[in-house]
């Protein structure tokens, strides 16, 4: 009975997750809080708060899970986690047939402590200002995997009408990591959850204080160990139950032929253990390793000293170091971007910004009257903007700029080839248009004169949206291209003196 109740919850939460994923598109989104499960994730709250010293208001949801885990234990993993459901469903891949073999498979191993070290490294990184939790957090990983790998694949192949054809640069990497994590179930069930998952580790630590726990009545127990044959967390119900590992899947209660196990309020202390068995030196070592990694990463790529022209952040993004304190690389903004221009960064944003969102205008531009990326961002790395604020009104209210356009006069048709072309000006969405013409008389190869419209960019009006680059008829490298220069999130990026800062 418990098993079916749990499965019902898992299916409901997975369905809810998939529903939110599915509506994360311009046509369906309405007002849904599509990253609700990430907002519910205390690890997201903890790491972003450690890094930025403040908690985005949506992340207050995480307090509910913290309190529930303090009372009930690490139930999230077996009842709510979308990645947990997938792992549990795939657990059969390696599952042994005979119950005694399964007991061995689901026995505690020393390697299950690795996740606590992963957590310590992540917290160390965050404390030093670099949030990398999204790389391993199960909810962010599942979202990213589904949004930028599975759904575009299905979309391109099967449901082409859903978001149109989608491509994410080096999405294959995301595919390999996502399916690789699932494939670890070939080693033994829930390998990722038991060995690697930093959220599981955090919830495990909170479970040290849990009031409700699994308890085995030694009066009734005859030592058959059936309780351990399906234990999801490898929590050793046949021995002393490990409160930090127990996912409250309740399979042990179901497995016991004599009804010798129960989940109850404050069972005798000796029936469970909260010991993780990692010496303080290892905790500290992992945390310090994470913290020390940050200056090393910044010595290599920096945050500001060498900005990459391709590091074009979504509109409303915080200044870069504040952005890295909050961005989870979950891919929600990439999923919702109506043009598909938001892409997972590879080297464009430095090693710390790996898989964080950048706009690649050749793939898709930033739609002027659209603020969806800020609407779906769960941590406030991209601020919520109103259309009015984004578009602005020159000269009193400058627009939100993500970069600016530059002509490549060797590739632009009028400049380079004396050929008529007005596409960039035509599609330029600002009013007045940032791209304007000057008439110029040119002499052709055969000596004939003709008058051409030569395009120029007015930096005061250009927002860097990239519509010109997307639409430029010159294939592969466009004749007009956007770089991050002049983005408005930091005065240091501005080219012109207007704005009062240098």
């Amino acid at each position: 009975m418990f098993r079916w109740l749990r499965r019902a919850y898992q299916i409901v939460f997975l369905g809810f997750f998939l529903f939110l994923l599915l509506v994360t598109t311009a046509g369906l989104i309405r007002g849904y809080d599509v990253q609700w499960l990430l907002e519910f994730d205390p690890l997201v709250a903890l790491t972003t708060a450690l890094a930025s010293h403040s908690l985005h208001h949506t992340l207050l949801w995480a307090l509910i899970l913290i309190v529930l885990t303090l009372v009930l234990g690490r139930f999230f993993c077996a009842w709510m986690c979308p990645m947990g459901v997938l792992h549990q469903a795939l657990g059969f891949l390696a599952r042994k047939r005979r119950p005694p073999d399964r007991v061995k498979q689901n026995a505690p191993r020393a390697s299950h402590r690795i996740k606590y070290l992963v957590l310590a490294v992540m917290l160390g990184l965050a404390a030093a200002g670099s949030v990398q939790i999204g790389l391993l957090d199960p909810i962010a990983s599942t979202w990213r995997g589904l949004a930028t790998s599975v759904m575009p694949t299905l979309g391109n192949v099967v449901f082409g009408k859903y978001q149109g054809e989608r491509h994410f640069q080096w999405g294959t990497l995301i595919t390999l990591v996502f399916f690789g994590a699932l494939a670890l179930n070939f080693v033994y069930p829930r390998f990722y959850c038991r060995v690697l998952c930093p959220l599981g580790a955090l919830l495990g630590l909170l479970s040290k204080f849990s009031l409700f726990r699994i308890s085995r009545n030694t009066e009734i127990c005859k030592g058959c160990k059936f309780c351990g044959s399906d234990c999801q967390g490898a929590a050793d119900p046949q021995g002393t139950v490990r409160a930090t590992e127990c996912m409250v899947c309740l399979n042990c209660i179901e497995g016991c032929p004599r009804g010798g196990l129960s989940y109850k309020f404050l069972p005798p202390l000796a029936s469970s253990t909260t010991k993780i068995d990692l010496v303080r030196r290892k905790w500290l070592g992992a945390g310090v390793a994470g913290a020390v990694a940050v200056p090393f990463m910044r010595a290599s790529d920096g945050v500001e000293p060498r900005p990459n022209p391709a590091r074009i952040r979504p509109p409303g993004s915080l200044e870069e170091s504040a952005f890295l304190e909050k961005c989870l690389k979950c891919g929600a903004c990439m999923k919702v971007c109506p043009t598909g221009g938001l892409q997972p960064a590879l080297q464009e944003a430095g090693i710390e910004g790996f898989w964080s969102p950048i706009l690649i205008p050749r793939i898709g531009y930033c739609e002027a009257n659209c603020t969806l990326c800020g609407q779906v961002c769960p941590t406030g790395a991209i601020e919520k903007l109103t259309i009015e604020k984004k578009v602005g009104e020159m000269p009193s209210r400058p627009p939100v700029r993500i970069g600016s356009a530059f002509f490549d006069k060797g590739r632009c048709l009028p400049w380079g080839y004396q050929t008529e072309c007005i596409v960039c000006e035509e599609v330029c969405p600002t009013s007045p248009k940032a791209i304007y013409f000057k008439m110029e008389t040119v002499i052709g190869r055969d000596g004939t004169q003709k008058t051409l419209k030569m395009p120029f960019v007015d930096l005061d009006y250009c927002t860097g949206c990239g519509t010109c680059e997307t639409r430029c008829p010159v294939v592969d490298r466009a004749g007009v291209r956007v770089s991050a220069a002049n983005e408005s999130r930091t005065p240091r990026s501005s080219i012109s003196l207007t704005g009062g800062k240098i």
Partner: protein
Amino acid sequence: MSSNGPPGPYDRVPEARVSKSSHATAPAPSDAAGVDRRVALRVGVTAAMAVGSVALGFGLRERSGSKKTRALPTLKDHRAEKPAGANDMAIVRGPDPAANVRRAVEALGGMGRFVKRGERVVIKPNIGWNRTPEQAANTNPDVVAEVVRLVVAAGASKVWLTDASVNTPEQCFARSGIEKAAKAAGATVIRPDASAFREVNVSGKLLHTGDVLFPFVEADRVINVPIVKQHGLSLASMALKNWYGVLGGQRVKLHQNIHLSIIDLAAMVRPTLTILDATRILTANGPTGGSLADVKQMDTIAAGSDEVALDAFGATLLGLNPNDVGFIVEGMKAGLGTPQWHNLKTVELGG
């Protein structure tokens, strides 16, 4: 794993012992009150954790609309009161730069008119370029050293000397000869490292805020010691233009409107005293120079507290009409001084 210390859950303890001993080793509750106490303790600890995390979460939350804004400091007005009958400006010509400085300051009433005992003073020469003194791209080191000595003699408690160089600071400070001379004379030389800047309100027409070398925020008195140079964009670089050198950040952006940005900065820093170094002046290829052919020996020092007047005088040394120099005209309009230096109470002393 843990061969020392009590066995942990991953230690290979015989299974039977673990499972059977689990209840046996539990301390038997002596009475009902003991059980109640333990229950209360466990619930209490968990409740405290829960309340603590919720409180912490709400404490850390971002409040919408109330972004943390630090109040930025604004620079003080460093000008000194002018005693009745004192000279406004002194122009001294002579072969010894240090003697010229001494005589000019003397003619204005002595350093004691500008610096009081115990005050903290910052001296701002031009140390912009990796050039030797002979190339006349930076202020003459003998002039700077003499200013330091006079300020020390006036009883200043702290004498900073700094500039935000354009070329590599270490090399500019060394090759200009200024660092060595100023240190020997008793100054604390501040190189423009990233940590030496503070964000301040500029409140100018073009520039609203900017990063300024910290001594300018902290000092009681400011002494400007510029050199007279030709400048490719602004025509000349003298006293008013010297304030570019207090700024960090991407200063090159200011060249989009050089005259007004000079005035923004000059209105921000109102110095106590300005000593204009025209020992050698750079007449062409400024402000960097490089060729001795562009340098003219003038053996002149001008001092005063009206930067516009001093710049107007300096412009004449470069063969310019002050009314043709944008920042001099703008400086007058902004009320920073008068270009009519000969209408001021000026003394001229020969060599």
